[in-house]
């Protein structure tokens, strides 16, 4: 069966990212859910990976509706699979038509392979706390950046983070995450 519902470069990139993230999720024995995919794509967007996905920022974190609907089309075309057995969750994995779609746009994706692999490694193992922390750090950074002569520093962003989140997170974990976000150009 050929691809009927998918075929764009964005969809190929999304499928490729899911297949790469799946490998890392397997190493960590973790799930690869919708939220994790959203965040990975967001950081890749910040890192300059070409895509037309548009992320809306709110205090729950960056979100792109098109990624959600493209994921469903990728499933319908067997490019990816949702292996979750629980109806409210998702656990993405490559499907039988993955290569067919990725091959169509291999030339555009290949130059970004290393960036994609790095971002995925930095965000592993994709758990909910990390996602919440990245979204909050991102929000605070942008809020401080907007202020006149604003110069968000690691100290100022983390200080506000700890004030908001209290003792839910360890400061050293958040500092590590902040460094990883800088490394993946999340604050571009």
């Amino acid at each position, binding site marked *: 069966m050929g691809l009927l519902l998918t075929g764009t470069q964005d969809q190929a990139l999304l499928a490729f990212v899911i297949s790469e993230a799946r490998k890392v999720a397997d190493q960590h024995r973790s799930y690869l859910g919708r939220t994790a995919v959203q965040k990975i794509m967001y950081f890749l967007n910040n890192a300059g990976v070409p895509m037309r996905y548009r992320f809306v920022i709110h205090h729950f974190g960056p979100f792109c509706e098109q990624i959600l609907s493209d994921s469903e089309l990728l499933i319908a075309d067997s490019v990816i699979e949702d292996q979750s057995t629980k109806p409210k969750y998702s656990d993405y994995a490559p499907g039988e038509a993955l290569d067919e779609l990725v091959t169509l746009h291999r030339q555009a994706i290949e130059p970004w392979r290393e960036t994609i692999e790095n971002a995925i490694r930095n965000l592993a193992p994709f758990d909910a706390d990390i996602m919440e922390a990245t979204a909050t750090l991102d929000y605070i950074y942008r*809020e401080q950046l*907007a202020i006149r002569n604003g110069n968000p520093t690691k100290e100022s962003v983390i200080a506000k983070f700890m004030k908001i989140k209290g003792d839910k997170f360890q400061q050293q974990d958040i500092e590590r995450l902040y460094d990883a976000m800088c490394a993946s150009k999340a604050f571009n």
Partner: protein
Amino acid sequence: MHSDLFRQPEFLTEDDHPIHRVRCPIHGFIHYSGNERKIIDHPLFRRLRYIRQLALTELVYPGASHTRFEHSLGVMEIATKLFDTLAARYGSLMEDKFRTVAGFEDRPMGKARQYVRLAALLHDIGHASFSHAVEKVVNQGGGHEVLTCQIVANEDLLGGLLNRLYGEETAAFIARIIRGEKNLAPQLALLHALVSGEMDADRTDYLIRDSLHCGVEYGHFDYKRMIESIALCENDLGGLDIALNRDGIHTFEALILARYQMNTQVYYHRLRQLYDEYLIRYHQALGEDIPDTPEKVIAQNDVTMLARMIQEAQTNSSERSIWAKRIINRDHHRLIYDSGFNATVKDIKKSNNMFGDLQRRYPDRQFIITVPSPRIHSLLTPNSEENEKLVDLQLIDRDGKGQSLGFESRILGKVPETFRCALIFVNVGEDEQTLRDEIARTAKSLSKE
């Protein structure tokens, strides 16, 4: 919470007072300033007079020939009413928040009000001909928001005029507010939400306006009550979120139901979907003439494209003429399978397989499949599958405390966040009813396998 003194709207200069007016079938008179008039009269904005709001929906609902021009004015009017209602009640809070943003230190409320008006007025200026219908294939699939921001921010397009009228950096700010993306300061996210959020000016205007012009009642709701009920609350991170006073819960429920009904009955009507598909195929057959750059998109509108189609429908010279004939002669494929609006991803996959099977069984027939999946709302409710992407809209009680609207409402949890369906059409003539019935039966039996 309502500790603020009532605030009158603040105008930045003499030229920003609303001295002009125009009639609107929804809002009565819409007032605008001399500066705004210069934008409304700009050729890039005037172009919206020739872009229909609902593409070829006019082939299904003949009244639906209204344009993006009148809608844009309507969105400006509603966004202003929403802003003024909030400013009257929460002016100090808003002012404090906006003032922290670089560029908003001086007269933050006047600036924010003007910017939200401009963002609302210009939010659709990048639409290609036929609005959403061909977005996937023109301008390299960039979508109208991308082009809107380019037009607004580009000094040689509208950016120069905006900066001259309202000061440097205005164009960049307006583009950020329209797009609402990562480069918009969180302190200003409220302005984006007023134009395009869960309780926004854009959707409010198009639901009511499209209902009026289509001659349907589905999109009507008491939006005046909704505007009166709008509220603000601070989120955990110190930003401002739109909220709703408790007395507005019923009109908000009506808004969500209106969205559901308009999507199922008008925007995703089966024939509308099919004609959108014809438009896509026509554009794909344009070859080098496809509007694949911003300049080419801006140079076209519905009138120029329809004139071209009318000519090409009279020839047999190209693939374009096949699709032009379908559109101009209103000669369409026939529906033979409808999954219903509650299709799961599994159902879509099955429909997709069925589509392949039908093509193999009837090789001399052309089949078309459409799979829309629009979002109705993004509200957190007890039935929500993925909390993070959803908006936890707060319902504000008299004591100022907030409750989750999605949990308080008995209705919102029942309205699906999205709907999804697969439709399969085949090219049979009106005199081939027997064949159409046979194919439909085959499709039905395949769907049960």
